[in-house]
């Protein structure tokens, strides 16, 4: 017993607080946990989350899940497949548009391209500001401005991705190894030559793989913007949820999950090949 106490005393001397947790620290932890719990419960109360609501909803949820079986295409398989491909097309064009606009922004926001700190700081903060706007918020306003159809979907995806891709592009530019440019300059290359052979070969695979990653994400976003009227699979899903055709909803969702899996797999393989 005393040997144990001596051991504990030695450990305490080496690293105070390692074995014996002091009372004040315990009280602090308990207070933090209590504050967290109070905030959490208050939030639940504020949102109207109660066992009655959850219980009643779960019963209905059970009915809905029951209605999902068996999944059926409702005899509209060609139309659904077309909508799915259209969703993919919206994602491709949105990503392309975003990348095209993000390239000059990325160049302007990179420290090693634009030496003036005021410019790239301003552009970065500007992009940060817009990064928080969700794609659905863009889609809602663009549907109101441009009208129903795939075009507002493409624009919404592009607008929400321009600041994100711009930031990634700028970071990739800043991570380019400067030694290749130095050696090109030492052998007498022009500025454009330095850029073409010293920067682009390092940069292109990174940018392409970032674009591919965003294409994967945008396939999901394209389904989301369809719900507010921007075409594609989201539009079909929304229609069927509104009329409670849950067996068709289940079919479309399963089909969509499989295609997302295929797209993700292909894009992941390509990205692994690139980098």
């Amino acid at each position, binding site marked *: 017993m005393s040997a144990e106490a001596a051991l504990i005393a030695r450990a305490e001397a080496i690293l105070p607080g390692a074995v014996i947790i002091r009372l004040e620290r315990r009280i602090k932890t308990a207070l933090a946990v209590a504050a967290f719990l109070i*905030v*959490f419960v208050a*939030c*639940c109360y*504020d*949102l*109207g*989350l109660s066992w009655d*609501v*959850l219980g009643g*909803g*779960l019963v*209905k*949820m059970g009915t*809905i899940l029951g209605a999902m079986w068996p999944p059926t295409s409702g005899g509209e398989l060609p139309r659904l497949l*077309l909508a799915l*491909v*259209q969703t*993919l*097309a*919206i994602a*491709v*064009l949105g990503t*392309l548009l975003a990348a095209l606009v993000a390239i000059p922004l990325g160049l302007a926001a990179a420290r090693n391209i634009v030496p003036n700190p005021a410019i790239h700081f301003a552009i970065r903060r500007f992009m*940060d*500001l*817009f990064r*928080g*706007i*969700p*794609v*659905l*918020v863009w889609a*809602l*306003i663009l549907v*109101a*401005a*441009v009208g129903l*159809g*795939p*075009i507002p*979907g*493409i624009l919404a995806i592009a607008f929400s991705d321009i600041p994100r891709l711009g930031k990634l592009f700028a970071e990739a530019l800043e991570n380019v190894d400067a030694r290749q440019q130095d050696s090109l300059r030492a052998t007498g290359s022009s500025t454009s030559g330095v850029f073409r052979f010293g920067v682009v070969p390092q940069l292109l695979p990174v940018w392409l793989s970032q674009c591919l990653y965003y294409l994967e994400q945008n396939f*999901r976003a394209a*389904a*989301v913007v369809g*719900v*507010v009227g921007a*075409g594609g699979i*989201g539009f079909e*899903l*929304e229609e069927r*949820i509104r009329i*409670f055709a*849950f067996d068709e*909803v289940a079919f479309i*969702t399963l089909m*969509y*999950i499989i295609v997302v*899996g295929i797209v993700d797999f292909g894009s992941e393989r390509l990205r692994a090949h690139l980098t």
Partner: protein
Amino acid sequence: MKDSAASTGTSSLNRVAAIESEWRQTIRKSRLQTFAWMILVSIILLGSVELSAVGKSSVDAGWIDRIASFVDRLIPDLRADALFAGRQVDGSLASWFYDLPRWLEAMRETVAMAFVGTVVGGLMALGLSFQAAANLNRNAFLRHTVRRGFDAARTIPDVILALIFAAAFSLGAVAGVLTIIITTMGSLGKLFSECMENAEMNQVDAIEGVGGNRLLQLRFGILPQLLPQILSYWLLRMEINLSVAAALGIVGAGGIGMELERAISFTEFDTYLAILILIVFCIFVIDLVSEQLRHRLIGLTQ
């Protein structure tokens, strides 16, 4: 003597020629590859343009006017002399943000949705991620079931989930919270289980060696080494969920998004801009706070 020098000369010349021809072949092959990729990408792009009907859309002659009038209605008519006047005065900031107390209330609801959803979804992810990590769960069937569950929860678009939950739980914040719980569980579950697979197993073995049960092994062997990383992912997810929660309101799942939807359906585009500014501001502030917290968490481990 002379002969041998000439022969080495020709052989090295031959070598150079061989290298050059190989080089030319390599270049030709890589150019062909690039060309094939460009053709493939062009086909995909042309197909996309065709399918999304961008070219065929009925863009009438007056589209410039339409966008101009839209932008005109988006931007509020502020007057410099009445900027800080009361709500009743046209052109003041107060008349632009005319419903600010209600929007703040809705914003509070959005933050609460994101908070509750992140906490509950993260706890579920934490509980399940032990089952999805290959070094902690040897049962391959259970492991793959949990992983596919995470994948499905991440892949189903959140808006679709919200619509389905709204059908069961009626429109409002509850549907939004449940949606956030599911998507958070999917994405955090994947990240957490990947963290756990990288964890040092020595601590777990040590606790097993002194007779600790499974729960103690996880609590004292795994959690302490991963806690900073897990909490930092959790906070990052909180930031993401805030914008998700704001967006979900658009399909009727409670919070500030419902105000956005209302502004659009009444075609009050300047109100939409006001609410958007509010959302961006709130997300910006919470991002800053959360970033500070995350940096402190990562700093503590070093």
